[in-house]
């Protein structure tokens, strides 16, 4: 469970990206965060695993307040949270398998991992994750040889290998073509259902958010302006989130 209590974030240049956010996200939910570019979606998402530290307020993960944790405790928090990026963020010159295996580094002491030593269970786990995403046959290919959709699946496999209870995704399909987008979103839905992993995803396209997420959080200028079920979202709410009526093609995400 994630709980935001009056969370604020002011960057060092004075930009106020979050202006008092209150939220609760329960285990197993599939939440999409929507809003204009610059609304504060990435800041909100990245504050959950403390990739961005908040300025004030409290942020609880399973009732542990995370703004004070650092060092080992912070790394333990992060290893239990998968993260997916718009540009996949794989180590390009490394094999798919080794990329996925890095999902385990947080679970081991420095020394063995420096020599690339992982227990057998970890190796099996990495290969299982690849299998679950249908790319086991690519295990020993170099990551940069794969298509964008395949690379995002490798990133998802890396996240799964962490055995996370939560996956954060910052615009996971923004650099993919429409067909691959649907495939990767289906993967997210499957991971949410089959593994019971909570998904929080920043989404560019409203229609995708509505189709896949069960809950929508609309954010505008650092303020949560809508928080409810996907089925409750209507034209008027979109106007509130985006500050204007969306053109047909924007909603469809063309």
């Amino acid at each position, binding site marked *: 469970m994630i709980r935001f209590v009056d969370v604020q974030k002011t960057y060092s240049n004075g930009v106020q990206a979050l202006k008092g956010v209150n939220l609760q996200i329960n285990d197993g939910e599939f939440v999409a965060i929507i809003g204009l570019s610059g609304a504060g979606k990435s800041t909100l998402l990245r504050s959950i*695993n403390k*990739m961005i530290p908040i300025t004030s307020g409290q942020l609880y993960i399973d009732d542990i307040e995370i703004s004070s944790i650092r060092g080992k405790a912070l*790394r*333990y*928090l*992060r*290893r*239990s*949270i998968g*993260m997916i*990026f718009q*540009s*996949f*963020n*794989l*180590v*390009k*010159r*490394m094999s798919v398998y*080794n990329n996925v295996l*890095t*999902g385990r*580094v*947080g*679970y081991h002491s*420095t020394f063995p*991992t*420096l020599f690339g030593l992982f227990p057998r269970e970890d190796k099996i786990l990495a290969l299982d994750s690849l299998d679950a995403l249908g790319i086991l046959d690519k295990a020993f290919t170099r990551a940069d040889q794969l298509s964008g959709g395949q690379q995002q699946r490798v*990133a998802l496999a*890396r996240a799964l290998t*962490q055995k996370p209870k939560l996956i954060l995704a910052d615009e996971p399909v923004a650099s993919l073509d429409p067909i691959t987008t649907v495939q990767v979103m289906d993967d997210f839905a499957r991971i949410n259902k089959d593994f019971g992993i909570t998904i929080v995803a920043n989404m560019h396209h409203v229609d995708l958010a509505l189709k896949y997420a069960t809950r929508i959080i609309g954010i505008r200028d650092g303020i949560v302006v809508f928080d409810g079920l996907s089925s409750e979202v209507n034209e008027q709410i979109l106007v509130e989130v985006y500050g204007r009526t969306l053109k047909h093609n924007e909603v469809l995400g063309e």
Partner: protein
Amino acid sequence: MKNSEKALKKLPKKWIINLIFTVALIALVIYTLEGSTINPLRVKQIPFIIAAFFRGFADILWPALFGFDGYQFNESIIYLALQTLSIGFFGTLLGAILAIPVAFLASRNIVGKHLAKVGSVLLVIIRVFPEIILAYILVKGLGIGSITGILVIGIHSVGMLGKLFAETIDEMDRSSIEALEAVGANGLQKVRYGILPQILPLMTSITLYRLDINVRSATVLGAIGAGGLGVLLTVFSDPPAWDILATIMVAIMAMVMIVDTVSSKLREKLI
């Protein structure tokens, strides 16, 4: 005036710079020629020297590969060629190891713009300091031998290796490091999985390329006492023993060709 014409006016005027360079180049050539007096007697000798050189190839002294009279195996061409090869190899290795800390010092990504200037200037100084002068200094100070050769080549290589290593570090993709941080990796783990896989293959490739260069210069440096095959060039060129010189040439060419082939094959694999 159309916008495009206005933009055309604003284009940098390259021809001025080109003109300056051309004039400077011509001036330099004239200046150089003026200083040197050509001795017609010597010019007449050139064809004979070339002819003698090629005649040397006709009667190559194969046994010299394995040893000279009185000095058996230890001072053979093959032995000295292997010594040159080792000087090139260990010199390059030393250079690569020394270049790593200097490269970090010259990388904007790591130490920031201002400190990186210091590192870059250091690298420029090393690069422009003539290798042959360094060799003279070290031969005087440390004596004739392979260790001197290794040091000369090692130190001199830092200039180029450090610069190219620093560029590799600066062009590193930070996104994979971000991902590792999100996975809960600690500092060393980030270096091991986020940084090394990116920069090691490139650095190895750069080093192999430098090995090529260094084996060649190890040969020449030997001529002034830095160990290896080069010493034979000095010993047998006054008066010239063309047959032995040709044999040495063959050995040098074979050696350089082998290193060249191996290094480029390995580099292909790495990139």
